[in-house]
């Protein structure tokens, strides 16, 4: 499989079901941007801003947060146990059906 289904719920609560390629080295931040969803991705995906902060709503096996990601979440707001940086979630086959919710900006 090289295409999985991912649902992104935007800040207004509207779900967007996206086809996500798993063979292009993409992450969730890039997927959202390519679908023109309002994700800034200011630092380009280095876990150095928090503009792709999102909540993982489905219990998928996402690799643990790195120290960089954990550190960066310190500068984000509205952080919960489900918080991740989209740029650190790499699209892979076992994430089929993943549901995420974009975190508020600011």
């Amino acid at each position, binding site marked *: 499989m090289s295409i999985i289904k991912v649902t992104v719920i935007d800040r207004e609560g509207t779900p967007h079901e996206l086809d996500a390629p798993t063979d292009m080295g993409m992450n969730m931040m890039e997927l959202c941007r390519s679908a023109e969803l309002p994700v800034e991705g200011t630092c380009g995906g280095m876990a150095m*801003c928090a503009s792709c902060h999102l909540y993982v709503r489905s219990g998928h096996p996402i690799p643990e947060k790195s120290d960089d990601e*954990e*550190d960066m979440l*310190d*500068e984000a*707001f509205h952080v919960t146990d489900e918080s991740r940086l989209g740029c650190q979630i790499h699209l892979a086959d076992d994430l089929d059906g993943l549901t995420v919710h974009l975190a*508020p900006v600011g």
Partner: protein
Amino acid sequence: MIQTDILIIGAGPCGLFTVFEAGLLKLRCHLIDALPQPGGQCSEIYPKKPIYDIPAYPSILAGDLVDQLMEQAEPFKPGFTLGERAEMIEKDEEDQFILTTNRGTKHRAPIIAIAGGLGCFEPRKPPVENLANFEDKGVEYIIKDPEFYRDKRVVVSGGGDSALDWTIFLAEGVASEVTLVHRREGFRGHLDSVQKVMNLAEEGKIRLLTNAEVMGVDGDDHLQTLKVNHKQEGEMTLETDHWVPLFGLSPKLGPIADWNLNISKNAVEVDTFDYSTNVPGIYAIGDINTYPGKLKLILCGFHEATLMVQSAFRRIYPDKNLVLKYTTVNGVNAF
């Protein structure tokens, strides 16, 4: 008043390379940047990260790239206004721009090149209701003068180096009472700073609240209390004179949004012929501009800067002919 040929807003890689290309055409440049050091994002966000797509550098650290660009620009003696934000522009009777910074420094030039990257870096403000009502009335995002806090009660928020360093500094005989509030157990600052903070907490010299977040501010004319949500202990109220939330910097387009430029999606629209904006004499290059096919890459910004200065030259000297000269033939003739 600072007078120059090209006033560059933003001292990132693109702005710095503009100095070199303009210098080859004997145009002088002055750079303005809201950050206290040149280099833009490369210095502020990722100085230790390697970049792999700078032509002829298989890999170069962002910080080193800035050093190299500074060296390359040096023969052309650029001026710098650092730590100030370009705030306002107007035209004088000789059709020159007068640019004033947020600190009132005035600059004059016939050409403005906006190389502002992501915009100005500004402190990240926590989303707390009524926060704006207490700004400069007990809530400060930057510590300018620690003496301001002498014998005061201070709450610091954040988990990075600046939060740790200021907590340590204020606890050592400056503030009467220091509390550090942090979202989780661990800190991301330098290990020795973390250890120092832990020691201060054990000795009772500071109050350390981890797994906690400030959720509310209250007071009459001045900040008096903070509402803190603690993961285990629930809601608590802290009495304090100051709250200093230190959550890093994030870029904002800032005042240039009000300069009558055509803006789309937080970027300045330009003509790819010469990267001019809709305002004659103002150009935009690098990550801050947009046009069909735009790629936000340093290497594209370098190209844009090179074409832009040609157009700037023709605008300043409409009667002079411009011939492309190769540095290999002519060398670099320093100012």
